[in-house]
């Protein structure tokens, strides 16, 4: 019986001109979004790849100089684009794309691509995620808002119930039929997406089949939730009109208001420092010490005394190693400590803000699916911070190697230059994106929230169908 109802529902949907037009529009937009996402991905990854190679070659070819001059010359780290960005570009237009790895300073990431874009771009880019998060739900609403109210208003609900069909069967049949109708849209879209990903498949950037499957399942949970909600509202509403208006209102809150409101909540719960006070705090601590009472010269003096004591000599030229290297490395390490405190705190706050968005998925499911989608696509704040961290680790490695060379291979006060033999001791910067497990452990709440939503909306639908009375 369920099958009969489902078949009837699906057939009705396919025959509905509105759905056909809507589906064609959504499918067309999805196709355009995927194509442009693909273009964007391949352009950026090609240029960043070339830039990474160029910066490395320049590092090796920099000629003879003092290792510390080379440290100041430095290299650049360019953030790679992940292939799944063709599904969800996340925050990638709003984060800097490269940083300069030089001595002494942890530099901020520069050039947010959105700064090169027009103000109108703030309306939002057309990406597959926009289509999946905003448009498909609206299509589901338009498809299903009258599923139960319509039967009641047409008087067919009385017939259905009178023919002895159980209410559970009706509910199941309706849900199955609508899903079947929708699959006419979702299945080809998923196929196109999968094909695009196969083309883009790039193991080095951590895109695995399991990531794609998880991504797809987050959207399926979301669509299920929206379908459940639509049917539930249709079962509980007085009339088709009330059902439609309520569902549009829910859509507005869910799709339009929630990201902005969640930003306000996150901002007020975990405020970020201003760029000015952030810089000033770091500079103060570098100059006057983390406790505020150990200025640079005092720290230098203490270091010198301890190094001299450790080697049992009483002046710097008597040391078997070059003190300049030791002193440079010590100041690097002190600065690293300061950076870890401040950049670490900043990253923590951003992560907390991100968690606020995710947790607010309890109120509007869009926030949960958005979080899961960006996370699995590798375009969220977490992935950006992961790259920032990796680049900084590489910067520190470069300093350790170069300062170590000064310490071991040169004499205090001499003019010391080296060449490619030392530059090549620095390994090329290779980036390992976070493994799926770490993404999943972060996004587990999103999945739990989405599953709870699905369950709840299904339950609300079931209850609604059981209490609905024919007119």
């Amino acid at each position, binding site marked *: 019986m369920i099958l009969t109802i489902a078949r009837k529902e699906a057939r009705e949907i396919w025959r509905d001109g509105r759905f056909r037009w809507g589906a064609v529009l959504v499918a067309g*937009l999805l196709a355009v979004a995927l194509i442009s996402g693909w273009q964007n991905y391949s*352009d950026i990854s090609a240029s960043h790849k070339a830039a990474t190679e160029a*910066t490395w070659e320049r590092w090796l070819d920099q000629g003879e100089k003092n290792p510390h001059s080379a440290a100041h010359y430095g290299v650049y780290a360019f953030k790679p684009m992940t292939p799944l960005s063709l599904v969800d570009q996340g925050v990638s237009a709003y984060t800097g794309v490269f940083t300069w790895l030089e001595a002494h300073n942890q530099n901020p990431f520069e050039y947010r691509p959105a700064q090169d874009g027009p103000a109108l771009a703030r309306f*939002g880019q057309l990406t597959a995620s926009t289509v999946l998060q905003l448009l498909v739900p609206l299509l589901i609403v338009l498809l299903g808002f009258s599923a139960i109210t319509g039967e009641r208003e047409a008087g067919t609900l009385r017939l259905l119930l009178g023919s002895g069909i159980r209410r559970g069967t009706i509910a199941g049949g309706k849900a199955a039929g609508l899903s079947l109708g929708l699959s006419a849209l979702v299945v080809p879209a998923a196929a196109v997406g999968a094909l695009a990903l196969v083309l883009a498949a790039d193991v080095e950037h951590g895109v695995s089949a399991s990531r794609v499957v998880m991504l797809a399942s987050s959207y399926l949970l979301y669509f299920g939730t929206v379908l459940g909600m639509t049917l539930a509202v249709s079962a509980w509403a007085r009339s088709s009109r009330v059902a*439609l208006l309520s569902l549009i209102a829910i859509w507005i809150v869910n799709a339009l208001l929630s*990201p902005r409101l969640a930003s306000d909540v996150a*901002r007020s719960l975990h405020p970020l420092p201003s760029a000015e006070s952030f810089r000033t705090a770091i500079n103060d601590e570098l100059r006057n010490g983390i406790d505020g009472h150990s200025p640079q010269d005092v720290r230098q003096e203490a270091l010198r005394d301890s190094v001299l004591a450790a080697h049992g000599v009483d002046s710097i030229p008597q040391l078997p190693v070059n003190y300049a290297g030791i002193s440079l490395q010590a100041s690097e390490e002190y600065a690293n400590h300061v950076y870890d405190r401040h950049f670490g705190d900043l990253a923590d706050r951003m992560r907390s803000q991100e968690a606020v*968005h995710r947790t607010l998925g309890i109120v509007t499911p869009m926030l949960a699916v958005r979080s899961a989608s960006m996370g699995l696509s590798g375009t*969220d704040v977490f992935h950006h911070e992961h790259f920032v961290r990796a680049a900084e680790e590489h910067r520190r490695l470069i300093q350790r190697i170069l300062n170590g060379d000064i310490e071991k291979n040169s004499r205090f006060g001499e003019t010391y230059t080296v060449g490619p033999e030392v530059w090549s001791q620095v390994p090329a910067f290779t980036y390992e994106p976070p493994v799926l497990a770490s993404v999943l452990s972060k996004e587990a709440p999103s999945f739990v929230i989405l599953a709870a939503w699905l369950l709840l909306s299904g339950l609300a639908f079931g209850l609604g169908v059981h209490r609905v009375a024919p007119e």
Partner: protein
Amino acid sequence: MLARIVFHEWRVLRADRTLWLLLAVLVPLVAYAYANGAAWQSSQQEIVRQVLADDSTRLATLSAQLLAIESGEVAAPPAFQNPALPAPVGRSLGTRAAVLPPAPLAATSVGMGDLFPSYAVVSTVSGDPFLRTPSIENPLHLLAGRFDLAFVIVFLLPLFVLSIGYGLLSQEREDGTLALLLTQPLPSGTLVAGKLIARFVVLLGILIIATVLALLLGGAGNLLSWASAVGLWIAVVSAYTLFWLLVVALVNIRGRSSSENAMTLATVWLLLTIVLPAALNITASMRYPVPSRAEMIGVEREAAEEAQQQGATLLAAFYQDHPELAPDSVAAGPTSFSAQSWAVQEEVERVVAPVRARYDEQAASQRELLRRFRFLSPALMVQEALQDIAGTGDVRYGEFRAQVHALRAEFREFIGARIVRGDAFTSADVASIPAFAVDTSDGLDAGATSRVVVNLVGLLVLAMALAGLLMAQLPRVRMRVRA
């Protein structure tokens, strides 16, 4: 007759609680959105104040240091931080701030203000001081955009119009009153016009009073000199409301049910405010893709290296081109080193400039393309107009950026001349370091005003086209009276 319909509609709106519902939702919404924008505005004011304070402290310190050195009270510090040498002054000790204070109406639309800095510190250091000014904001929040008044207008106002208008005629039909109405000696045009006017007045009245109150209570400052800007704001919002009301009327005369009308209107809204802008964006970025700035860094570094290798030659060539700047005797020590590295820097600037310009041109073409197509969607026109009124649009930031670059060029010339001449930097020079002329104009500038007016005209043309369509169709429409 029209007045009577309007009055009757007003009574209906009051009686069926629409009016109260609107008041209860719209007023808090405006208050919240405005407070949000005002918080951003005051944070920007604070930043500008801080930057200007730092700027004068920096110059005062420089002056004091120079006087102390010149009077022999203290010994000159090492060359890289010696204020008596122009190079360190240009690099850090005497840098100048450029600021863009938020306009009085900035709180109504944050616009691009969360993405672009409201200041830049100009020095001789390479790179774009505007794009490189650090800012700290969660990218997730940049992506979402602010919940400001412009958001309420562009996205939510149409939804309010649709919610009080989707049953304009269909509701009367479903209630059985349309047949009664049409038996009266009442042209259907007058009926529709009366219904539209009542809704227009109620909705806009609430919105404008709430906004003006917010502006006054929020301390937007000297509103009188900005009266024309406030007037333009009201005109743009009115035209936008009118447009949506006419859409509502056009959908209603098709004689469908209220549900169908709601569905159609929601779709139109979705197409015009979400789908079309996104589609235009994607077209513009595919047509004029702005390549990643990563390539620029490569060019910059390569130029720097080549220039460094021929540093001495460059300096000689420089003196040949500018004999007036050549020192009497080419001094040894830090001066000649500075002069050489200055010549290198100049060369790098020269090589990199066209590359940078290419990025800017590409971005400008993209912007131009979008600006041309904005007439397709009223939402795009309104967004741009509201940003121009608030002074947070990309054009104003672009102008500020150009001013920053002009100051930078002036500053580099000022410092560079002293470096290559081998002059010392003296306390008398401090006062002549190029300074930024802060924009203190009252009211919108001519460019912004004309952009707003163009958008306003665009909106009105769209509205007039709809009105024409409505008037052409009304007499021919057979009003279905039965649901």
